[in-house]
């Protein structure tokens, strides 16, 4: 397996530029893939009359890192670029063809009078660009074909969140090149723990790549299982600040939180339904852990399981019509699915000593879970149509897998060098990266939904 190690070069820069809480994360790729497609993201040309301001975001660098972090692309080093064209008509296709890259991204940044930035960027296919240099004869006329220009977009952006602009451009590029929607303009929520702090337990959010980290909540007592609502504007989580289980909903817009009136016993693992109107949760008010659904509007509670064993870790199928959960009803913990209409329950997993913490991929094709095999807990994937199980990770204590909204990647927690850290693995298991925290331990990652609507 081809292995590369790469640190985000802009990390220090951004740390100074944006106010970031400590324990920042950074992505370190641990297992790359041979099939990553070579591309180039040329530094964007500054078109201001004044020199480029110091600390101006390097959009191209962030885009290149996004593409690399997807595991699908291998961006060309800047030092190996034959030229740095600003527009398509300045591209020397013969020179780029030599480098072997499939496509290049070029762009310009122009400061506007109102303080915003106008970004114009193009994605061009090198081989067809080379071919199209020679005009073709169609109906006795020489026609210049421009089908090598895959994207040609211009937009005005506020400079408030420059990294988000880059992620958005990356989303466009990724979708054009792969046919899969990009998930770079997304966030993760997670729990950080540092026992040396006065408030050791923290709930945080950051961009998917660990940058723009914000502490939402800090506590002397454990915080568990953040989960996003479908708009990406709210988080449900469990806090033990009152020495009992309480489910809270945190509103990222108002920065206020709301308590779900707790039931007797355990109140854990809240998960928003795909339409955002309900929360699945695990309550033990009837004596043992069971799956419930709480209607956020009517405050009505529906009990879904009644079983003497533990039923826990419920998550919604993407269509909202069923819920998958972990249950000990068959002895050892295995994954079951309950149809919300018929209330029929069926067992989904049969391999391994135990299977836990299930979630279904956005396309409904795969079950991602934690499996116990030979004393080790790893993240696995089961094809829901043919039952084929694939091991995605090789850790000993891998847990809390959360799938990216485009289904391309899974973020999970693992132990590296005696510390709990977050890691990424591609859905095919071939690409791996870790996000080591600079201090303390990090766990319980939850990948947000898409933060932009489908187009624009």
């Amino acid at each position: 397996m081809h292995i590369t190690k790469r640190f985000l070069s802009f990390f220090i820069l951004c740390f100074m530029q944006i106010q970031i809480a400590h324990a920042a994360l950074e992505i370190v790729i641990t297992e790359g893939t041979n099939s990553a497609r070579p591309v180039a993201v040329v530094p964007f040309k500054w078109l201001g009359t004044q020199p480029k301001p110091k600390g101006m975001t390097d959009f191209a660098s962030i885009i290149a890192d996004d593409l690399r972090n997807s595991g699908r692309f291998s961006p060309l080093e800047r030092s190996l670029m034959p030229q740095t064209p600003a527009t398509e008509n300045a591209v020397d296709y013969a020179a780029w063809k030599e480098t072997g890259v499939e496509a290049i991204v070029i762009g310009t940044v122009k400061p506007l009078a109102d303080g915003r930035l106008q970004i114009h960027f193009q994605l061009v296919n090198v081989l067809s660009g080379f071919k199209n240099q020679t005009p073709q004869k169609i109906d006795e006329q020489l026609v210049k074909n421009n089908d090598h220009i895959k994207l040609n977009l211009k937009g005005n952006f506020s400079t408030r969140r420059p990294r988000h602009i880059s992620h958005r451009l990356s989303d466009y590029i990724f979708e054009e090149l792969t046919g899969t929607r990009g998930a770079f303009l997304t966030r993760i929520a997670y729990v950080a723990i540092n026992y040396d702090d006065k408030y050791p337990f923290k709930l945080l959010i950051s961009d998917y790549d660990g940058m723009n980290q914000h502490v939402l909540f800090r506590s002397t007592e454990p915080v568990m299982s953040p989960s996003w609502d479908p708009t990406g504007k709210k988080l449900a989580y469990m806090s033990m600040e009152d020495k009992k289980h309480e489910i809270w909903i945190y509103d990222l817009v108002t920065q206020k939180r709301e308590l779900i009136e707790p039931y007797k016993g355990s109140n854990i693992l809240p998960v928003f339904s795909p339409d955002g109107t309900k929360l699945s949760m695990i309550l033990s008010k009837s004596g043992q852990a069971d799956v419930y659904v709480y209607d956020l509007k009517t405050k009505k509670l529906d009990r879904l399981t009644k079983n003497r064993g533990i039923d826990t870790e419920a998550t919604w199928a993407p269509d909202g019509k069923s819920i998958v959960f972990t249950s000990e009803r068959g002895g050892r913990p295995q994954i079951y699915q309950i149809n919300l209409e018929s209330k029929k329950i069926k067992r989904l997993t049969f391999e391994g000593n135990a299977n836990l913490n299930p979630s279904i991929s956005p396309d409904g094709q795969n079950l991602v879970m934690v499996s116990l095999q030979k004393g080790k807990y790893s993240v696995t994937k089961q094809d829901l149509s043919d039952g084929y199980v694939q091991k995605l990770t090789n850790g000993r204590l891998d847990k809390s897998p959360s799938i990216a909204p485009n289904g391309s990647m899974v973020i999970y927690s693992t132990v590296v060098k005696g510390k709990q850290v977050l890691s990424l693995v591609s859905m095919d298991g071939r690409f791996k990266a870790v996000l080591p925290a600079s201090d303390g331990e990090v766990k319980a990652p939850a990948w947000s939904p898409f933060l932009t609507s489908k187009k624009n």
Partner: protein
Amino acid sequence: MQLNKILKSLVIALPMLTLAACSSTTDTTTNDAVESATQQATNDAANADAESGSNVVVGSDTDVSIDAVENLTTEEVKKQVIDELRKRHVVYFGFDQQAVTAEYGELLQDHANFLIDNPAVKVLIEGHADERGTPGYNIALGDRRADAVVKYLNNLGVSSSQISTVSYGEEKPVNTSHTAAAFSQNRRAVLVY
């Protein structure tokens, strides 16, 4: 074990003190009244032991406890008992196990005795798990461990109204080293007063 013996004698002494305090508080609630009641109770205890006499070990230990208790109020005695109980308040479990093993019988008996003798005292039982498995499963497992201790205490006669439980799952380890040694220390139920 010296502490253990002190604890036992206090457990015996306390209900007598409590009873004595109750009977004498009808006309007065001052500290003096409580102290004099204590004095009376310790004297009673001493007399009782002098009469039974035959158990030398118990006798000598009780004398020690009387010396220690003599100037204490019932509240202080109770605190001292709780302090002793707090030193032995953790029940450990095997991997993925939720049954209380026989080795904790004596420990839980001491706690039960104290709770039965002091019906106003409440105890919180925290259930904990090691980090093997998943947080969502482990928090349910922690619940079960706490419940197992509750059932054990119930069977010894402790009223459910004195006990509450909370599960921390794998979220609050005492040993954070992610090693096998840490795991066995983290699989526990803790009795908190």
